[in-house]
């Protein structure tokens, strides 16, 4: 076997991102005054190529002594992330058009993406930690990208502190795991874990670290402030791409390394998911800032994803990946409209959306469809996503959890409908003016809506993901 070619093909997505990074660095260094428009277009085209390239040359394999592993499912997960990043790049067009630091923005963004790719592909806890840090430190810089806004730096500061803290927990957990088992390779770990108190302690530390990263209750306290302070583009990146990638890894780690602890983590996830859904929903009801509102609603979504993880079957892991794909479309659709409104008119409260339908009918429908998808209303894809998540969870026979989740869907519907009500039904003296949408955010919203409508009804997507998924 030719090691060199393997090396290129197995890591093709990482190579693609690295190449784009180098192109951008080269432009940054070589020319003094760049025309923003061209750069934005170039970046968008490069990212599109990145997404398309992801679908070719699928191959399973491991590299570097199981440090790096890849298979069809992992490639698909990375494709979902690349697609999300592409949509976000399209959406940030009106916001970045007049920004001086446009290249830095994309360099940071792609560095985090690269980190996430390494994290997902990690076959070793050390590699995972490396990828995680590579992805979270540039994110803090991104959160601070509204350079003039004080809230933005506050958000960045909160983010860096909480992520450093959670990384600390993870690192302690990882070192304890190493101390008690003598290995960090995920596939070998399960044979060495036999449930000694120190191992359980390490396991709890790991779960807490992951809990911070995916903002599960009670580790969610940083989320709302960071989401509110960051620029909308970064918020959507945080809530979709960054969260999605950690969820993928979380699932892999639980399913491979800790599969002998299934009873322990089933109970932990049960408690976590109930808390996450209930608290996320209850807080979301009371929000008036739409970014905070989406932040809490995305916390509640994590609760549902955790139910899918508890399924621990092939259907379970398929439903999680499938849901993250749908969640990418729905959340980016909602954030896309919010970002446009915020970039052009500077308004971010739910009250500002009153009578939005009178002035912007198309954007209103896009927002409404995205919110319906988040709420899980057919025929949007969100319905199928939630249905399969809960179905996978029900496979374990715990109907208490499913009933709680189903009733939580009703609560979540209440606050999504509140926004819909503001858009369509409430009168307003001073609604948001008619927005002129440039082609690239339009394309982004188009992709989102198409995704929301089609990924559900066309069952092929689910079947494709299912065929690659692996349970315990």
């Amino acid at each position, binding site marked *: 076997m030719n090691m060199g070619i393997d090396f290129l093909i197995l890591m093709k997505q990482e190579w693609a991102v690295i190449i784009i990074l180098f192109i951008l660095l080269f432009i940054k260094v070589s020319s003094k005054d760049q025309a923003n428009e061209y750069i934005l277009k170039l970046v968008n085209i490069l990212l599109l190529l990145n997404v398309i390239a992801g679908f070719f040359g699928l191959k399973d394999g491991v590299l570097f002594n199981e440090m790096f592993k890849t298979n069809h499912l992992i490639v698909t997960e990375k494709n979902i992330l690349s697609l999300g990043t592409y949509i976000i790049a399209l959406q940030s067009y009106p916001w970045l058009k007049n920004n001086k630091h446009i290249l830095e923005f994309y360099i940071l963004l792609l560095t985090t993406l690269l980190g996430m790719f390494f994290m997902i592909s990690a076959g070793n806890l050390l590699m995972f930690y490396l990828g995680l840090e590579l992805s979270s430190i540039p994110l803090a810089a991104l959160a601070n990208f509204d350079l003039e806004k004080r809230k933005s730096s506050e958000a960045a500061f909160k983010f860096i502190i909480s992520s450093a803290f959670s990384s600390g927990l993870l690192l302690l957990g990882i070192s304890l795991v190493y101390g008690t088992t003598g290995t960090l390779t995920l596939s070998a770990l399960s044979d060495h874990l036999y449930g000694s108190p120190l191992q359980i302690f390490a396991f709890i530390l790991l779960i807490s670290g992951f809990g911070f990263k995916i903002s599960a209750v009670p580790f969610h306290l940083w989320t709302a402030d960071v989401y509110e302070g960051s620029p909308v583009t970064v918020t959507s990146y945080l809530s979709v791409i960054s969260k999605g990638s950690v969820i993928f890894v979380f699932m892999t780690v639980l399913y491979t390394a800790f599969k002998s602890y299934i009873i322990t983590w089933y109970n932990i996830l049960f408690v976590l998911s109930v808390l996450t859904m209930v608290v996320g929903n209850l807080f979301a009801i009371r929000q008036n800032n739409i970014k905070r509102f989406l932040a809490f609603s995305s916390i509640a979504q994590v609760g549902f994803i955790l139910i899918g993880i508890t399924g621990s079957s*092939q*259907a379970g892991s*398929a439903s999680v990946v499938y849901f993250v794909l749908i969640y990418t479309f729905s959340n980016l659709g909602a954030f896309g409209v919010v970002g446009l409104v915020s970039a052009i008119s500077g308004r971010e409260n739910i009250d500002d959306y009153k009578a939005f339908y009178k002035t912007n009918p198309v954007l209103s429908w896009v927002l409404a469809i995205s919110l*319906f998808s988040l709420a899980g*209303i*057919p*025929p949007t894809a969100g*319905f*199928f996503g939630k*249905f*399969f998540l*809960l*179905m996978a969870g*029900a*496979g374990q*026979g715990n*109907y208490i959890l*499913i*009933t709680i989740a*189903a*009733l939580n*869907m*009703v609560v979540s*519907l*209440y606050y999504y*409908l*509140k926004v*819909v*009500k503001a858009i*369509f*039904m*409430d009168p307003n003296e001073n609604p948001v003016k008619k927005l002129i949408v440039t082609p690239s955010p339009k394309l982004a919203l188009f992709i989102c809506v198409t995704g929301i409508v089609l990924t559900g009804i066309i*069952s092929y997507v*689910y*079947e494709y993901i*299912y*065929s690659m998924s692996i349970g315990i």
Partner: protein
Amino acid sequence: MIGTTLQLFFSLIILFAYWKERAAGNSSQFLFESDYSWFEPLHIHYHIGIDGISLSMILLTAFVVIAGVLVSWTQEVLNKEFFFLLLFLSAGAYGYFISLDLFTLFFFLELAVIPKFMLIGIWGSGKKEYSAMKLALMLMAGSALVFVGLLGLYFNTNLNGAHSFDLIRISQMHIDTSVQNVFFPFAFIGFGIFSALFPFHTWVPDGHSSAPTAASMFLAGISMKLGGYGCLRVATYLMPDAAHHYSPVIVLLSTIAIIYGAFVTMMQKDLKYINAYSSVSHCGFVLLGIGMLTQTSINGAVLQMVSHGLMTALFFAVIGMIYSRTHTRLTKQLGGLLKVLPFISTVFVIAGLCSLGLPGFSGFVAEVTVFVGSWENPDLWYRLATILACASIVVTAVYILRAAGTAVMGPITNNHYNHITDAAWNERLAAGILITGIVVIGVAPFWLFHLINPGTEYIIQHLGKALALK
């Protein structure tokens, strides 16, 4: 408009095709079945087909939707969206009635919730946002319970090691009685919320009275039937052991709904509230018929669904017509309408008489069938419930006659009424279509009865088997 005419046309075609097939001796349970694999790994299929029960529901939907579109002919505000949502809603209802796969069924059930929210919230009147929200949340809670019930069924089916959502397959296997007893309440209460099961009926009056005319017609006429149909087709048919087990409770709740609904109606002053509460009472008959578990009573329940659907749609249409002319729905402020609005008032009286069960209209046929079927149950408890339910008809007569008397008869109370005009062509046509349905069923119920009977026979066989196993 073209769309709804087509709908009616197609459902009539299906009706004739159905008759032809049955006449040709095709005795399989469902006709025109088609089955496509949808989510293969989870054994979810897009499986559709009809039997007599679903066909009668489809016909009902077609009648009510076309009448609803005719009534809102002069709709002006955002009319494209209005008709889009209305058709979306009817698509949900059709899909629901033809589904033979529980996943598809649930998909269409939820599909029909949000359009209702939008219709009431945007075009409604009164405290519309409150009502729309209440309706959407209560119906979603209902479907959440249904969801748990369906998942419970799914994971307890065993088809060579795989699970199935297929209605026919589930009906052929025997699910453990203890499992049935756990999940039957979920499914029945969930569907029951759609059908105004006591004490979950509170969305009905608010939702109906705030909705625009066409939406009220749809809500009361079809949407509440989704629940009744689900109780019958999913809960009772698939979990017969549990149906026997819980039957006294169902009978108790539905009797309460019938009597409570009737007495509350007596106290109402607003015409829409009168009809909404009387719908609670009338849908109680549907659930009573299902809860009695005899073939005649279940036939009666289906007849009552069709009859109530047509009758209440007619009622709401007439109330909408009256309101658009007089700008009030309070019975006290109306009066002497027969003199100025002869056509509308006559239709109003016809709807009222049908509602109180006058022979010759569909209401009589349906209610009598339910009572006869209920009386077949020899148990004292059921007898008592039947007697009480029968007695409620007197109360119905009181409120209907009183409403008709004050609103339509008597002297003209407001001089302004002298200048209003009678029904326009579209309103006459809508009323005509619905009245035709009511009278045809009332005078010649046998054709509908023959349509329904084969469908209910399967359910009864199933229930009988369950009883024998006991």
